[in-house]
């Protein structure tokens, strides 16, 4: 299978504090990888290094063979192929749902207003929010906002989707609707890297689970391997707390 992301000895420090201490991994096309680990383990930082939102201190990240952290790389072009969904949604509050979704496709992809609108409508149908097309973000619930954020990322027709704890800021009753959208996306064959605390989702949807702690990949494998037979003691300890 096609390898879309390759990470070699990735390190990251904030000041003198090491956050990532040499991460290696490869992610193949259509693969769904869930990244789990205790808070402060570096899993979000790892994800943010994949599209260059966070600068690497050492090592390299290749997306489709292009080095993300190379100064010469056209990082905007690269990012237009990598969708990202944030913990706190980060919808543009001064724009309607429609405008949130069509902004980047019209400005970056040069779609006409009509094309962008059609695409936005299709995506809103997909996430079940077509009736909210003219609403402002502050008129939506958290779960609805996150689904719009997913539609906004998908409107660029990315080849990879990154999710940074997409359900952590949601009220419990809204977690399900967001996970359902993500699961549908996974079933369509989207390549996904998901940092999550939703172990049920990871077990059910992930092709592979990565357990990160203290800036290192401690263990990775199929959901069954990680959740039912963790080899490492640290993985066992973590899972015994969260499961």
């Amino acid at each position, binding site marked *: 299978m096609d390898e879309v992301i390759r990470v070699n000895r990735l390190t990251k420090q904030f000041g003198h504090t090491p956050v990532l201490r040499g991460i290696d991994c490869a992610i193949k096309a259509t693969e769904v990888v869930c990244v789990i680990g205790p808070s402060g383990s570096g899993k979000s930082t790892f994800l943010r290094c994949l*599209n260059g*939102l966070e*600068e690497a201190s050492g090592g390299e990240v290749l997306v489709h063979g292009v080095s993300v952290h190379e*100064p010469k790389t056209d990082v*905007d*072009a*690269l*990012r*237009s*192929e*990598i*969708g*990202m969904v*944030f913990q*706190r949604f*980060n*919808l*543009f*509050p*001064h724009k309607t749902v429609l405008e949130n979704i069509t*902004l*980047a496709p019209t*400005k*970056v992809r040069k779609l006409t207003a009509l094309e962008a609108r059609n695409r936005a409508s299709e995506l809103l149908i997909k996430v079940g929010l077509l009736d909210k097309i003219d609403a*402002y973000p*502050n008129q939506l619930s958290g779960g609805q906002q996150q689904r719009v*954020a997913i539609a*906004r*990322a998908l409107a*660029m027709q990315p080849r990879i989707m990154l999710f940074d704890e997409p359900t952590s800021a949601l009220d419990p009753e809204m977690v399900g609707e967001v996970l359902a959208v993500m699961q549908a996306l996974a079933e369509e064959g989207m390549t996904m890297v998901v940092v999550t605390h939703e172990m049920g989702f990871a077990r059910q949807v992930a092709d592979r689970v990565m357990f990160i702690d203290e800036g290192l990949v401690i263990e990775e494998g199929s959901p069954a391997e990680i959740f039912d037979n963790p080899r490492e003691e640290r993985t066992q300890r973590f899972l015994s707390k969260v499961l």
Partner: protein
Amino acid sequence: MEQVLWFGWFRADIIAEYGVLFWRGLQMTIMVTLICIVQGTLLGLAIGMARVAESRHSPARAICKYALRWPATVYVSFFRGTPLFVQILLIHFAVLPLFINPSDGLVISGEAARNIKQNYGAFLSGIVALTLNAGAYISEIFRAGIQSIDKGQVEASRSLGMSFPRTMYHVVLPQAFRRMLPPLGNNAISLLKDSSLISAIGLAELAYAARTVAGAYSRYWEPYLTISVMYWVLTLGLAYLVKKLEARYGRGDSR
């Protein structure tokens, strides 16, 4: 002209006699203020952007720091840290003659320079000084406005493949602008009032008109009270306009 007394002490006839002077002064004050609001806002935007300019990679990073952030910081510090009155004098009597001078002006010299200096010297100096001063204050408003926008907004926009300038234009500035409206309004009101200082270099605006009248009659209540009321009406009008703008653009910002 016959003396006209209001309330037994206010010589209204003086104001009427110099009505044209006050009217022209009012026009000049409004014109100078409008020009400086527009130019000061553009300059403030540019300086404000320079103050937040950052880059990760090595050549651009140094350029941002030494060619943008440092000069912008020094500029803002100077114009906020020295009196506007001194700035006006400095620009009128020292800086402008350097550029526009009949004998050896750096930009314009000869007869044209003499002409410009005589007819528009005070106007030019006043506008330059007031614009530079306002630009420094407005840049701080822009900087604070930009920095008050949640970093997640920039990250979301950049992660969609939008470049930094596009992110600024479509995502950050429209949101920052709503928050900047009240301080920008205050600044416009200050600008209107501060324009009276330009009378010191002989620009015929409102304060200058009052001084002329005061000199001619040795009466002070009438001219200065008159322009006080005129300034007051102008600032009230401006405040009303800002309030309207806020009501119109302030919506949709509730995070």
